[in-house]
């Protein structure tokens, strides 16, 4: 079992502030009714995060239920065909439930248990966070309602059924654009109504404080392991760490333990959809402006009247108009850079990994791989890229078949 990296490596970078601000970003922009619950959650987390018993419980679950540590894998054929830097994959696709999301839901479910809350709720887009929440709810015997945009319920029918098999109630959301952002609105409405007995398991590094910090910390096991594995297997840190960014939890999870390693470049890849110039994308860090949605201030795709715009991405998990506030902060201070990959570039990278490595990555993850396909050839052979292979693509089979014009 990989232990977390010693805290002294993170000493230089200490975000957020006690009020949950990352520079001008983050904070807590919610209805007054929720303030009490958020204070309670922040206090509980502060008291537990260094508690040996809580850490033991968490790591026990991550080891024996989730199957961590996940491997660090040198993609040899891909590296050879790109003809530049070596490409290392952090195999988050091998987690139980098929993606990194379960690391966060396990952590938060343990918090819910400590708070004595018998019910959890979640929002989901592609369904991975919903599945990860339903999974831990089943394991801990918690009631579970998952809010999902009606459009996504149809697009991701396999994950909907997986959630139902584990006893969760999937609630289709018919308001607004019927996608992830609307599911989050509906989950907030549920929480404001049932705040006494319900914990809201937010699935990404967004939402009001303390969620961006909490979700990042639970996801940081990815970067902690990967950093140690790079040192152990390769003998040095990577030159670049790459991850896809929707809300940005897998990216924050792998970035965070590297933030004080000034020589390691951090690259997030947003969903470029049909192309940044078309406006049909989900890339607020590339083409958005500062705004407030779902409890925090960050970059946001909104129009001149402040209305949140509809987004487009081939991957439901990146199809979100906002982004975690810590990414906004890392962008502004120049510690991380944010690129975008189009639907087509992501699909091409997806197929490349299928054929050359025998891995079906999630379409979300394929955006990070698209950056690698473009940039690894420009790098020297002695350089290394670490990619967060954040999830597996089984859930996307129907979407891909559809693009190929095949009915399964």
């Amino acid at each position, binding site marked *: 079992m990989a232990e977390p990296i010693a805290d002294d490596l993170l000493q230089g970078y200490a975000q957020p502030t006690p009020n949950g601000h990352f520079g001008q970003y983050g904070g807590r*922009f919610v*209805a*007054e*009714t929720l303030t009490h619950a958020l204070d309670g959650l922040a206090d509980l987390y502060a008291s537990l995060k260094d508690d040996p018993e809580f850490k033991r419980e968490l790591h026990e679950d991550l080891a024996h239920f989730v199957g961590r540590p996940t491997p660090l894998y040198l993609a040899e054929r891909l590296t050879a065909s790109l003809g530049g830097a070596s490409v290392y994959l952090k195999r988050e696709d091998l987690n139980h439930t098929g993606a990194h999301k379960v690391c966060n839901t396990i952590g938060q479910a343990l918090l819910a248990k400590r708070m004595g809350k018998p019910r959890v709720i979640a929002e989901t887009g592609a369904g991975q966070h919903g599945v990860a929440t339903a999974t831990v709810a089943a394991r801990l015997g918690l009631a579970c309602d998952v809010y999902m945009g009606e459009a996504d319920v149809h697009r991701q029918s396999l994950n909907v059924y997986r959630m139902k098999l584990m006893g969760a109630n999937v609630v289709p959301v018919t308001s607004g654009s019927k996608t992830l952002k609307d599911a989050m609105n509906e989950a907030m409405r549920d929480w404001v109504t049932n705040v006494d007995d319900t914990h809201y398991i937010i699935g990404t590094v967004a939402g009001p404080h303390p969620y961006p910090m909490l979700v990042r910390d639970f996801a940081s096991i990815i970067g902690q392991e990967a950093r140690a594995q790079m040192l152990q297997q390769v003998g040095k840190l990577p030159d670049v760490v790459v991850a896809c960014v929707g809300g940005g939890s897998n990216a924050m999870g792998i970035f965070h333990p590297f933030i004080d390693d000034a020589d390691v470049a951090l690259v997030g890849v947003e969903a470029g959809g049909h192309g940044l110039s078309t406006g049909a994308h989900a890339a607020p860090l590339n083409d958005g402006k500062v*705004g407030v949605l779902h409890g925090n201030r960050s970059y946001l795709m909104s129009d001149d009247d402040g*209305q949140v715009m509809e987004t487009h991405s081939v991957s439901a998990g990146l199809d979100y108009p906002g982004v975690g506030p810590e990414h906004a902060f890392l962008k502004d201070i120049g510690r991380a850079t944010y690129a975008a990959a189009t639907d087509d570039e992501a699909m091409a990278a997806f197929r490349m990994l299928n054929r050359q490595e025998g891995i079906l990555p999630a379409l979300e993850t394929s955006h990070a791989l698209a950056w690698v396909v473009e940039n690894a050839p420009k790098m020297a052979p002695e350089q290394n890229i670490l990619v967060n292979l954040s999830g597996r693509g089984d859930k996307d089979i129907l979407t891909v078949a559809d693009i190929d014009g095949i009915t399964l």
Partner: protein
Amino acid sequence: MSAASPEAAQGRITEQFKVLKAQGQKALVTFITAGDPGPEFTVPAMHSLVAGGANLLELGIPFSDPEAEGPAIQAANERALAQGMTLTKVMEMVVEFRQSDATTPVVLMGYLNSVLAMPDFPARARTAGVDGLIMVNLPLEEAADLQKGLSAKGLDLVSLIAPTTADRRAQEIASNSSGFLYYVSLKGTTGSGALAVDEVAERMKFLRTLSDVPICVGFGIKDAASAAAVGAHADGVVVGSALVQLMADAPDVPTAEQRLQTATAAIRQGLDA
């Protein structure tokens, strides 16, 4: 009128509560969403509410993601946005309203992102004849900047207190409040049916000790009976979803005007009884 002096703008809400108190009356505060079900409904509706006995008008700024609203007001937001409503148009409606009503306070209510998108909001709101602002998703800790900008233009930022707000925090909110305090009567979204009058009464006793600012209670008040029950413990009541519901299926403006005036008058009667 757009030429109103800053002092007048500062005073309208406070003045209204002073007058009501002198008359021994409770404030009837009404909420409708601007531009719902169509832009032509709003100004006539505002006048009808006043004619029916409303003392203060809340006008909702339509927003794409109204995360604290129940189904009635969510739908109102969607209808208004489908008709092309913007914050600029909301301001224009207030200007038009002020042409024949210079005294009834108007408070805009909505979500922070709408206001952030208009950097000169305080100046424009004041010029339009707006008296205050309620931001659903702007708790005390984040409010300082906007509050400064508003108060420089003589506008009140109305603070909200919830059933879950701890005592010390309520004290802090109360001492930062201006215009009036909005007590959210229940845990839930707007228009929810779970109003518990005893709990509200209990909480009001405590809130009364914190500040001299008038306190209005909203969420879950829908008719004369609930208005009377809650009004007995507060300086005023806020009615929203029930009125929005009445307008939703009004076939034309005169019907909406008539329905609103009748409903408001009935609630007024309950409140005054």
